[in-house]
């Protein structure tokens, strides 16, 4: 029997909700990459490992709080630990800027040199994370698991299929909205934010009008550290924390930033959702959705899965290549905040 409602529920449960959460995480990560590109004008390869580092600090702080009996149940303790993570990551990132990038700014090095320096920073961050917390998977999510469980949903609606919304997914969406709103308010409404946009638009003109470049750089690193820690923590809460996965997030995040137009924050958000929705829908087995939509006798035998989940890199990569070939500046025009 054709049953559109149930098909929609299955689709929402396995594609829409996870892709929305994953997309928000990617968008926050891509925002960090795009802001660095807009202000400092290089592709920061260390961003994935910065996320891993920030999340690690949050995890350590969470464990400490859990031991001390601090809890904001049903919300995960990690949210409470987030400010600590952001602060520590900001300090570390600022120290790296001092020790590494500032010199290259002063000598006006080519962007490629910055990228290489960021490779060095990537190695060190990666090493630090493995050194401190180890390369293994860590769990730090506590509090309630679900906002709505599949069974409750079935009860409420009387439908055959259930839809579960994990608490981590809800938190991801709400946090992402708040963070993005705050970021845009800062960039568009405050004096400092406006000076940063001016700097990104035209560096020389901004310098002439008395904007202090080091202050702009300082603030952008703090923002990036915050974005990276939040994105990393949300991803860790939603899926799991493993340093190497964070390194691998580099590709989808870059793809998101480039698809949206490097340097364009709005683009990074759009790009994050483009990547996540394509990744999830290309690797999802649509068998059950199709079964609800077509008459019984047409029901598919196979999984109706375009690509196996392991090829999810191929998805971000293909989108990246297509965009670069046909619209090199990204969906939105890149290059400035």
């Amino acid at each position, binding site marked *: 029997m054709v049953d559109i409602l149930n098909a929609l529920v299955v689709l929402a449960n396995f594609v829409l909700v996870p892709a929305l959460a994953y997309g928000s995480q990617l968008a926050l990560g891509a925002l960090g990459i795009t802001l660095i590109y807009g202000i400092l004008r*290089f*592709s920061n*390869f260390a961003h994935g490992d910065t996320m891993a580092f920030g999340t690690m600090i949050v995890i350590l702080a969470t464990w400490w709080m859990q031991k001390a009996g601090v809890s904001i149940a049903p919300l995960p303790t990690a949210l409470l630990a987030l400010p600590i993570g952001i602060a520590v990551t900001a300090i570390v990132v600022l120290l790296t800027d001092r020790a*590494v990038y500032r*010199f290259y700014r002063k000598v006006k090095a080519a*962007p*490629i*040199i910055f*990228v*290489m*320096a960021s*490779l*060095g*920073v*990537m*190695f*060190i*961050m*990666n*090493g*630090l994370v*493995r*050194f*401190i917390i*180890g*390369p293994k998977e860590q769990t730090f999510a506590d509090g309630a698991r679900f906002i709505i469980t599949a069974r409750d949903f079935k009860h409420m609606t009387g439908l055959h299929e259930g839809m579960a919304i994990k608490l981590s997914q809800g938190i991801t969406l709400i946090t992402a909205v708040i963070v993005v709103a705050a970021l845009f308010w800062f960039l568009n409404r405050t004096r400092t934010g406006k000076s940063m946009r001016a700097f990104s638009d035209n560096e020389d003109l901004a310098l002439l009008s008395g904007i202090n470049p080091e202050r702009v750089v300082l603030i952008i690193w703090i923002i990036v550290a915050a974005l990276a820690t939040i994105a990393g923590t949300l991803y860790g809460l939603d899926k799991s924390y493993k340093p*190497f996965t964070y*390194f*691998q997030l*580099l*590709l989808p995040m*870059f*793809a998101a930033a*480039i698809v949206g137009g490097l340097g364009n924050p709005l683009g990074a958000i759009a790009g994050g959702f483009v990547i996540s929705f394509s990744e999830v829908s290309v690797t999802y087995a649509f068998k059950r959705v199709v079964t609800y939509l077509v008459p019984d006798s047409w029901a598919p035998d*196979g999984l109706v899965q*375009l690509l*196996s989940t*392991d*090829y999810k*890199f*191929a998805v*971000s*990569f293909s989108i*990246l*290549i297509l965009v*670069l*070939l046909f619209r*090199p500046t990204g969906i939105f025009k890149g290059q400035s905040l």
Partner: protein
Amino acid sequence: MNLRNISLFLVIFALLILVGFVQSWSVAFQLLSFCLISAVMALGVNIQWGYAGLFSVGTMGFVALGGLATVITSMPPVKEAWAAGGVRVLVALLFAGAVIVGATQIYKRMKPGRNRALVLTLELIAGFFIYRALFDPAVSAIEAVNPAGTGYLGGLGLPVLVSWLVGGLLAAGVAWVIGKVSLGLRSDYLAIATLGIAEIIIAVLKNEDWLARGVKNVNGIPRPWPVPYEISLQKSTAFIDFAQRFGLNPVDASSYTVKVLYSVLFAIVLMIVLWMSQKALTSPWGRMMRAIRDNEEAAEAMGKDVTHRHLQVFVIGSAVLGIAGAMMTSLDGLMTPGTYNPLRFTFLIWVMVIVGGSGNNWGSVLGGFLIWFLWIEVEPIGRWLLDVLTSPMPNDYWLRIHLLNSAAHMRLLTMGLILLLVLRFWPKGLIPEK
């Protein structure tokens, strides 16, 4: 080669000999083999980056393709699997290729507009589903043949030395396709694109069990021609006599012999590649490449076809990486797609080139030796260092235990530190480009 550079190389060899005395000769020979392989890899990256300024971080993918080449050339063919679906898989792959060629033709021949988009989409979608219909049953048929033992097509049963060449050709072929698509992108876009390609190649190797057993690994890849097996050496009386003359027991002696023979083979390959690289770099072609690297617009204005030259140098560099990858897999004797990791197989090689001196072949060789040596030796040195540093703490103190257990991760830290220091204070590397 001046005195300074020669002494740099001598220092490395002295370090290797020191390892022989302090740790063991087995470790030292193993190190030497990998140093030689690393040097070849570094030469490959140097061709791409040092000669032409291509920021390609897809190194891992080409190294892995070299590994795949040893499997598909040297393993014995699995006849039942071929009978079950070998031809069908090939037909499916050819069909997929035809679909893509067709798509590019449609894109080129038809006028831009809604019609072209529609035809293109239809062609791709139809092509994809027909391809899957051809491909999937063939693959399940192949993988059903003795899945615990084989479950793949096997190779051609050719000598391993041939597979090194095949590794180079395979990597070159794939690099040509990749280069066609992604060269001409701006430098950091190219980096992201190649990073992605390397991940995709590894994903293919991990998942396409019919090709090289995926994560089930292929073991028992035969050894290259002159290298014997330890067991057969230990059985030969002539060898036992030979060992006794040097006062070695046959087990150690056989292991040394095998490792030395591997090193000799690798050294020959390294010398050939190095000689060819040197010739290429000093030839008019090499000068042209460097001119393109230093000023693309000027070179283009002089009538040089920059994109074409970039493609050429990308393919050549990737071929060298493929050869090195094949050498490495035949040294290991097994193909393990799960162990390819971009930190180890892409960025480490880059560190070698930058530390050694981008654009200088001898520098890359030196960087390959030095960085591989450190990559391996930092762990024991770091453990020792941490042991000394934490010795005032009680033996069961958590921090001491944690630090000693984490010593293995010192290598990443050290590599990052070396890269940053070299970039900052010796941006031209240990042996600068002339």
